[in-house]
């Protein structure tokens, strides 16, 4: 005799699948967006005659917007690189929200913990740099 799956479980499973689909689309979308920024940066590098081995500037978030307005290649490259890094982090956030809606608290804790570890990495690196 086949066991009948309870209705809430079916809803939870379909929500999880929807979250997976959304996460997948998010990853693909962000990846293509980052490629777009990187292509703009590389084209500007070529136009400005910058060699890849000439040594690029470090990231400075406080001036990124003005550098973009000035069409500086490094600014678009940094925007692309940050978007690349943001893609998997965005996927964890989307999954975490989906698990919270399903009241799957263990997975919510795991999602938050992953984000926390990344935040600790940034914090410790900033502390060392300072």
């Amino acid at each position, binding site marked *: 005799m086949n066991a009948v799956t309870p209705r809430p479980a079916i809803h939870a499973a379909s929500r*999880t*699948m929807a*979250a*997976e*689909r959304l*996460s*997948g*689309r*998010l*990853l*693909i979308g*962000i*990846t293509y967006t*980052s*490629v777009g920024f*990187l*292509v703009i*940066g*590389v084209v500007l*590098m070529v136009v400005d005659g*910058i*060699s*890849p*081995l*000439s*040594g*690029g*500037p*470090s*990231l400075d978030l406080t001036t990124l917007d003005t550098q973009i307005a000035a069409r500086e*290649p*490094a600014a678009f*490259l*940094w925007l*692309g*690189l*940050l978007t*690349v*890094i943001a*893609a*998997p982090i965005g*996927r*964890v956030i989307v*999954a975490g929200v989906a698990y919270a809606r399903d009241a799957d608290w*263990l*997975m919510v804790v*795991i*999602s938050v*913990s*992953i984000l926390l*570890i*990344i935040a*600790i*990495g*940034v914090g*410790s*690196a*900033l502390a*060392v*740099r300072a």
Partner: protein
Amino acid sequence: MLCGGAAAGAFGSLLGLGGGILIVPLLTLGFGLPLREAVGVSLICVIMTSSAAAGVYLERHVANLRLGMTLELFTAIGALVGGSIAFLLDERLLSLLFAALLLYVAATMARARTVQPIPETPAATELDALAGPARTPTTLDRLSGDGYRVRHLGRGVVGATGAGVASALLGIGGGIIKVPLMHLSMGVPLRVATATSNMMIGITAAASAVIYVVRGGIDPYVAGPTAIGVFLGATAGSRLAHRVDLRYLRILFIVVLVYTAIQMLLRGAR
């Protein structure tokens, strides 16, 4: 740099590897970049190829999101540790570690035909039927997927942490550790293990890439063209995969890996 990245991306995609194993030698031996800087750039390329592929796997529901995120927690911890100690280690030691990794991958590829798949553990539903009355699902039940049951989570946790450290130190995705771990040790089918590992690579590399960015370990002028090249190469590689005779490509790749390992050993011994 763009062409080199494209070649690394295509080669990696055709042989089921991330580009990291090729990008670091390309940038250090080919363009004379410091190894740590090459590792930072490689991490960016690894995230990019992983995100594009993982997106497709997630849309098609091949990857096990729940298992992947559980193990990701530990790869992220490993990556945090690895990313922090990477700036303390001598570059010569990193070169030697990378040479050891290349030789390990070459040996694994050479032995690939002799490896026998192990039988998968019966699915949770089959075990439930044998067990009789309904029982509260365990953590392993919740991590299992359709048609298989996850086992040995402890080994997975230790292996995932190690993969995270290796990823952050050497700029690789760590799939070479995670796929065999999930398939051979945890009973996850190979296709699901590959897809789940691919999804995990993004977070593993992102956790250490942020440390490299903040500490000035990534040069945007190098990372931009290389990442675009890898993306284009990986896309082309995935479309060419069924038209290329992988036997000869595999032999060529093993030769390239051994040659590169020798060069890295020499670099480390200087």
